[in-house]
């Protein structure tokens, strides 16, 4: 007996996305897990503007990876060489495949200079893969102290695989205790649980 909830979904007509949706810019999201930790690259998302990017980031990256701070900025901002004289947050990806890590901030006249200063001040002789920089004025910073970010208030454990599996495991333990698991053991489910 399957749910009929979706039997009335209208048939898709035409293209599934519109040119507007396809051309939403990409935003990069950095999160800080605990106060005092460095900000690490959490991932990216597509959104039409900064305010929706912030909201989407909060739901997408703030829920599964609880954190105390979140920075959101346009991808092109991080890689741009242009810019104005101001403070830049600078991020280093030490090895290919690593997450970009916030290492500090520099004053610079453009992205290019910010990257050079980052290398000079924070990288030195060490090897690295890429450097990202972002003018602070172009980052949306969501501060857990004063802005609404995270749901630390109710138990969100059910969202996590471990939260879910704990419950599943308890149930299996109960089943085993009742010897009801015999029939399952003949199959490979024993391996799974």
């Amino acid at each position: 007996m399957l749910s009929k909830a979706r039997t009335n979904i209208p048939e898709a007509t035409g293209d599934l996305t519109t040119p507007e949706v396809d051309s939403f810019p990409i935003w990069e999201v950095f999160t800080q897990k605990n106060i005092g930790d460095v900000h690490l690259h959490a991932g990216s998302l597509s959104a039409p503007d900064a305010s929706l990017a912030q909201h989407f980031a909060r739901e997408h990256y703030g829920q599964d990876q609880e954190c105390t701070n979140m920075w959101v900025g346009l991808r092109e901002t991080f890689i741009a060489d242009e810019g104005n004289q101001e403070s830049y947050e600078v991020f280093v990806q030490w090895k290919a495949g690593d997450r970009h890590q916030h290492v500090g901030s520099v004053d610079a006249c453009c992205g290019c200079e910010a990257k050079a200063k980052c290398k000079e001040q924070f990288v030195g002789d060490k090897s690295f893969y890429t450097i990202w920089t972002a003018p602070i004025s172009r980052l949306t910073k969501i501060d857990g102290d004063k802005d609404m970010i995270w749901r630390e208030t109710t138990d969100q454990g059910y969202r996590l695989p471990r939260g879910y599996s704990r419950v599943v495991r308890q149930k299996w333990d109960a089943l085993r205790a009742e010897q009801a698991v015999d029939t399952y053991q003949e199959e490979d489910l024993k391996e799974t649980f």
Partner: protein
Amino acid sequence: MSELDKQFHEAIVNVLLCVADDKLFLGHRNSDWTGIAPILEADIAFSSLAQDDIAHAGAFYELINSINGENPDQIAFGRNTSAYRCADIVTKDDEFNWANAIARQFYCNVYEYLRLQRLSNCTWSPLANLAKRIDAEQAIHVDHITTWMEHLGNGTEDSKERMQKALDDYAPYASMMFEAPRGIDTLFEGGILVNEGCLFTAWKDCVDNIVDGTGLTITVEPCTGDGGRTGNHDEDFTRSLNELQEVFNTDPLAAW
């Protein structure tokens, strides 16, 4: 006060059911959008908020359990139609029209925020504490939906027109959120809840304020008549309930 006098049990359970049932069914209906919302990130966000609502409902069913000892799963899934206390806006079919889903969410989220704020002032501390905690998260829901209202109101002529139509279509259902739960006067008189004046007026000020500058208008009228809060539900609700009980009814005594 952490102990609640027995004379207030029935009334407070009724008020708690209004909150829990609203959240359970709103979360249930909103999760229909998982996988098919108009843009990927909206899909993820809407699903995440729907999960929140269901978790919040769970917390309120637990609180009811602490009063009457009934199993939270049984309370959530095991009642007859007339024993549910949600306002039928939460189950009003959105016909998979995003504007409808946003209008429903907007009306309900702001209402919930204000209702929880008032419940935070309850003199029975378990409810005050729970309402305070959940209201902090409800603020996130309001913040999120406010952005959508601003975007769709200030978007294109098309988006504004569709949003306005949805707001108008859902207006009569929004009125019914304000049907007073049975027994709430007993709780006011008994000093359990604080009567902070007309909830509808507070809500109307709040929603008007949010749409101010978007060119959208809210035409919701105060509640008249009996509806979901007194167990008089419409067809859309019954359909949602049947759907929700489909699995549960296959074996009501199963341990989940």
